[in-house]
């Protein structure tokens, strides 16, 4: 129980690999994105925001899909393992953080290219709705109840919420939108970007994805530790009440 008998932290060799990949790739995003890549012929210098905006948007989609898959694993798995629930919760926490970053960076980019921080445009509106939905998911996770109750109700919310992602992604195609269509691939499948810009964007996607893996791996273990500590605290409190002769 003492600190001498335990290993500090929740890292493993695998998470260290994710950490190294993320550090190297995101280091390049800062250096390459700000100082090395050329300005865009249409958007000028403001295109540098793309190297963080697009990867954070990608990771938030990925996070919400992982939340849904892990929730399905909990709900439909034979053992109803709380490990799935923790992965779902950790992925949603990271996804909400990255979606907030996507909205902020998009807003700053929008100010430069459209002249406004916010427009009730289909892509922006659906993205904001997705963000609020997953804030609601995290609120549901915070409700009182046993870990199994928490896991079941939040899994149902996650499986419903994930259907918003295609709506957000295809909003620029389904409706008239200020937001540009896909940044890398045109509708006919051609890549329409300078090589160094494309390289930096892809390194950003790899880096933020590795960071996501690192964060989810660590945070789901932190959740497991918190559940153990909380369970022990309840056991101790119940034992004390029994010793005092107080009815439970």
């Amino acid at each position, binding site marked *: 129980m003492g600190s001498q008998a335990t290993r500090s932290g*929740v890292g493993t060799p695998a998470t260290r690999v994710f950490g190294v990949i993320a550090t190297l790739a995101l280091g390049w995003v800062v250096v390459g994105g700000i100082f090395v890549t050329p300005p865009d012929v249409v958007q000028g210098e403001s295109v540098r925001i793309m190297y963080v905006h697009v990867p954070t948007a990608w990771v938030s989609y990925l996070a919400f899909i992982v939340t849904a898959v892990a929730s399905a694993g909990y709900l439909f798995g034979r053992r109803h393992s709380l490990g799935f629930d923790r992965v779902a919760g950790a992925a949603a926490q990271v996804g909400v*953080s990255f979606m907030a970053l996507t909205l902020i960076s998009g807003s700053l980019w929008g100010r430069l290219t459209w002249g406004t921080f916010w427009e009730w445009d289909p892509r922006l509106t659906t993205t904001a709705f997705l963000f609020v939905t997953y804030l609601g998911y995290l609120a549901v996770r915070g409700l009182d109840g046993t870990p199994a109750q928490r896991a079941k109700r939040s899994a149902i919310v996650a499986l419903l919420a994930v259907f918003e992602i295609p709506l957000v992604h295809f909003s620029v195609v389904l409706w008239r939108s200020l937001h540009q269509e896909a940044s890398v691939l045109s509708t006919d499948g051609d890549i329409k970007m300078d090589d160094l810009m494309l390289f930096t964007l892809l390194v950003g996607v790899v880096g933020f994805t590795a960071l996501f893996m690192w964060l989810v791996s660590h945070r789901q273990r932190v959740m497991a530790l918190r559940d153990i500590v909380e369970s022990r605290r309840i056991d101790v409190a119940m034992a004390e009440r029994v010793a005092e002769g107080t009815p439970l």
Partner: protein
Amino acid sequence: MKDVGFIALTYVITFGVVGALVATTLVAGRRLSDHVADEDKPWT
């Protein structure tokens, strides 16, 4: 030059939030793992 401020602000906010997420995760992991024996940590 207005672009420079917006671009810098984007990177500062993004990597500031990322740094905060990483730091809080590491601190919480270290704090809680000291209270739990290794046999209760399947990843060790």
